[in-house]
């Protein structure tokens, strides 16, 4: 089976479908690889490197004649004419927005798989080219902003005066947003983020950023880890928050997208106008119409000294790494399709079938609903968490140690506690009632009820506190509770008053044993805890 890596013809596109690295992996896996002359030049991958990796450098027509043609951008009309019948084309396609393109491809009787339709399930993460590209866009957005921004991101104290750190607000904490947060944080800026999805909060915080919220509660989770459209009240509250932030921040990076809809307008004209001159807005949604009202796709607009960057080719501006990532996504995708020996379009493969647009010219998009293969697709898993991308080391929780949240059962156990306490109370009441009908008039019983209240409260607190103890410390927990239960010494003391008599003698022994317990328990705990070191 022959793979053809063709040169992108779209103006300003510097990426290529695979780097020499990836080509070497394909060769090793048993593919033959043809690379169009000069395909990687713009991404700083000279032809010689592809040759070293084992590929053949060929002319355009030959590359397009391969069994599987690999590309980044959707094919241009003139490129479509070079496709051979029966060829498989894999690239970004966006069939929903590009119906004409799909029709023209259908005429050529080719099989087309769209990398933009690879589903966002955990198994397919290594083929998720959209996430790869968004990660790069997020990083690059910060770099572009820093380029236009006339000051430091990190605060500085110098002999010539001090500079406060730059403040960066990221709207939409998806893959791109989180990458932007990581990059801005890395440059030393104060970073904040806003997202309508509650699940984003933890991820934002794990990047060391502040998570902004509005007072209105509304779940913003939509399909596939994206956000949904919000109610009017919510949007108003959101605008109020943004207006406040506009006066404070130096850089705004917007990444808000709603699938199948134009990008929501979030950064309005008046917000831009209230920003300090020299501030920068980077609109990553420019291609879908932009989140900022001033955005013009592929341009930088200046309003009152505020730059609004609407580049839509951010990944292409980092063509070197973008080609490497995209190539690896393709590599895993081809692997999923069976590799060189068993290459086929498997309709039962839940990672491949959704990406299928055309099969030998037959329309296969949109795909039929899949059988539930993944155990639990909803709630939509935010795709960014397990990405082993450059931000990975920042994604680790900042809390020390490795003890993440554990499954706890406080509600269940406190329920049990209440039930037990209730049972004890009922039994006591019944027992007293049966033994002595006048019991309830006595002051002793009143005291009993008082004590019972204290008891129930304490059990409740105990249950709440103990569930938080880390399992590694269960032995020290036992020895410290052991020491504390030596509190029975108080009982011994109270009985040990007055002259020496039988009951005082017994109390003395009780005190002795209880105190051994107290001293021994605390010292043993101390010894154990002193040993735990990082």
């Amino acid at each position: 089976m022959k793979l053809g890596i063709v040169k992108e013809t779209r103006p300003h596109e510097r990426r290529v479908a695979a780097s020499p690295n990836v080509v070497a992996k394909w060769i090793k896996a048993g593919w033959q690889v043809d690379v169009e002359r000069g395909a990687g030049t713009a991404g700083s991958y000279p032809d010689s490197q592809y040759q070293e990796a084992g590929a053949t450098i060929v002319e355009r027509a030959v590359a397009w004649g391969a069994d599987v043609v690999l590309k980044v951008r959707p094919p241009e009309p003139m490129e479509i004419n070079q496709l051979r019948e029966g060829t498989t084309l894999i690239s970004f396609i966006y069939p929903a927005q590009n119906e004409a393109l799909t029709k023209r491809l259908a005429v050529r009787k080719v099989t087309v798989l769209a990398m933009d339709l690879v589903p966002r399930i955990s198994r397919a993460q290594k083929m998720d080219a959209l996430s790869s590209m968004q990660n790069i866009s997020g990083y690059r957005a910060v770099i572009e902003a820093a380029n236009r921004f006339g000051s430091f991101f990190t605060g500085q104290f110098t002999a010539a005066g001090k500079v406060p750190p730059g403040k960066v607000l990221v709207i939409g904490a998806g893959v791109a947003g989180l990458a932007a947060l990581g990059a801005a944080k890395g440059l030393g800026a104060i970073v904040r983020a806003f997202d309508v999805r509650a699940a984003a909060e933890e991820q934002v915080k794990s990047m060391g950023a502040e998570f902004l919220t509005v007072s209105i509660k509304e779940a913003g989770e939509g399909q596939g880890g994206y956000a949904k459209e919000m109610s009017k009240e919510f949007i108003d509250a959101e605008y109020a928050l943004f207006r406040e932030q506009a006066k404070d921040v130096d850089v705004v990076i917007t990444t808000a997208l709603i699938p199948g809809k134009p990008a929501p307008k979030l950064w309005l004209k008046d917000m831009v106008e209230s920003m300090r001159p020299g501030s920068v807005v980077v609109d990553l949604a420019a291609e879908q119409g932009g989140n900022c009202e001033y955005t013009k796709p592929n341009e930088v607009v200046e309003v009152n000294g505020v730059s609004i960057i609407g580049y839509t080719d951010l990944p292409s501006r980092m063509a070197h790494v973008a080609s490497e990532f995209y190539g690896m996504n393709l590599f895993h995708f081809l692997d999923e399709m069976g590799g060189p020996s068993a290459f086929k379009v498997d309709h039962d493969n839940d990672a491949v079938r959704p990406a299928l647009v055309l099969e030998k010219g037959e329309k296969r998009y949109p795909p039929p609903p899949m059988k539930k293969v993944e155990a639990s697709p909803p709630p939509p898993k935010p795709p960014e968490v397990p990405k082993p991308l450059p931000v990975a080391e920042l994604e680790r929780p900042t809390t020390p140690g490795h003890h993440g949240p554990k499954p706890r059962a406080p509600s269940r156990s406190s329920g049990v506690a209440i039930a037990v306490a209730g049972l004890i109370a009922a039994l006591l009441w019944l027992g007293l009632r049966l033994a002595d009908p006048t019991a309830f008039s006595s002051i002793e019983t009143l005291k009993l009820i008082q004590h019972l209240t204290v008891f129930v409260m304490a059990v409740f607190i105990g249950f709440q506190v103990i569930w938080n103890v880390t399992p590694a410390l269960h032995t020290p927990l036992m020895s410290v509770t052991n020491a504390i239960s030596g509190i029975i010494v108080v009982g011994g003391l109270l009985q040990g008053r007055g002259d020496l008599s039988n009951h005082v003698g017994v109390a003395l022994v009780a005190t002795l044993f209880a105190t051994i317990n107290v001293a021994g328990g605390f010292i043993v705990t101390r010894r154990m805890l002193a040993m735990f070191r990082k």
Partner: protein
Amino acid sequence: MLEHLTTKSDIGSYALSVVAYLIAAVLFILALRGLSSQETAKRGNIYGIVGMAIAIGATLALPGLRFHPLLIASIVIACAVGAMMALRVGMTQMPEMVALLHSFVGLAAVLVGFSIQLDHVASLAEGIEIYVDVIIGAITTTGSVLAFLKLRGSVSGKPLLLPGRHFLNLAMLIAIIVLGVVYSRAPQVWSLAAATAIASILGVHLVAAIGGADMPVVVSMLNSYSGWTAAAAGFMLDNDLLIITGALVGSSGAILSYIMCRAMNRSIWNVIFGGFGATPPPSAGKAAQPAGDVQEIDAASFAAQLKAAKNVIIVPGFGMAAARAQHAVREMTDVLRKQGVNVRFAIHPVAGRLPGHMNVLLAEANVPYDIVLEMDEINQDFPSTDIAIVIGANDIVNPAAEEDPTSPIAGMPVLQVWKAKLVVVNKRSRAAGYAGIDNPLFYKSNTKMLFGDSKAAIEKVVASLKG
């Protein structure tokens, strides 16, 4: 106590001691809270000590009471004895120490109950309280003593299963209730003493029926009992501090027992009354009998394998504690880590004889706690692991729990060591684990056995690693 208050200043200082008790109670809560992470744990322990000092101080400062001077003497003596015990005990003996201390709390509670009985019993309610306190205390005392002896090895770990033991337990329980009714009508020493004796036998019998593998549950259950007994004493003495503290300890032990039981996939009733680990059903044993021979490995070739590995996970069990091999294991870890091998530890919740036992032993040997992970954190990493080293563990790595539905431990969550590329099991001999079940892990094709005492075997491996 209020009846002792005569003057206004007495009432004032009484109020002060109530406040002091409250502070002590809050400090105890903070002490437990501190244990939620290693960073705050030491501070938590100090809170506990301060709380205890305040509690004792406030009690001694109670107005209108004349304490016997011998009390102070007994406190001083007890502190010395307790400190000596605590400083001399080895980390491997920690389970015994904890069990012994539990029995002291139980004993103290029984004695306080008798002391009040010998003093005077004011009312029916107080009578019931004394009775409850003494019964729970007696069960705790004798149960803990037996647990101590079992853990020390003085008594066999095998469960004692008398014929009709459930009936025996029930009979004792009924006898205790009947005596309780008698006692509450006329609170006399003989009925209380008789009930104490029965409760003591009950405590022994309950613990005797539990197998060695379930010891972590027993110890945490006794921990819980010692708390409830302190709470009962609080009711008896009208002392809220005792009630609060007892309830804290009681619920702590109860939660630990629950966690342990869940880790073994068994209900608490099953553990208490089960007599588990005695004789596995013969049919199950036959069906699960794995075929084939074990493959042995020697220290030198094991060391060679380790040198080539990138990811290593060590699974320690009670065998490591018994052989005191933790220092040797740490040395091996250090050598490997210096060579760039990613070494981590996987701790099963019921490894050892106490909850968290392995963590303490590894900490004693100076293993950094951030490479010591819990089962849930590390279980998915075994497939990407080059070598899994099982040191003195058996049941917690038994694949039969997942693969053989007839196995007595079926369904118990286990560490999936067999998914690693190579498993090396260090074991003293070919005997079955505490649960008495054969382990198919030993016969897997990717398993190699390193027979011998853990300490000696690992030291040999370290020597070959260095050489």
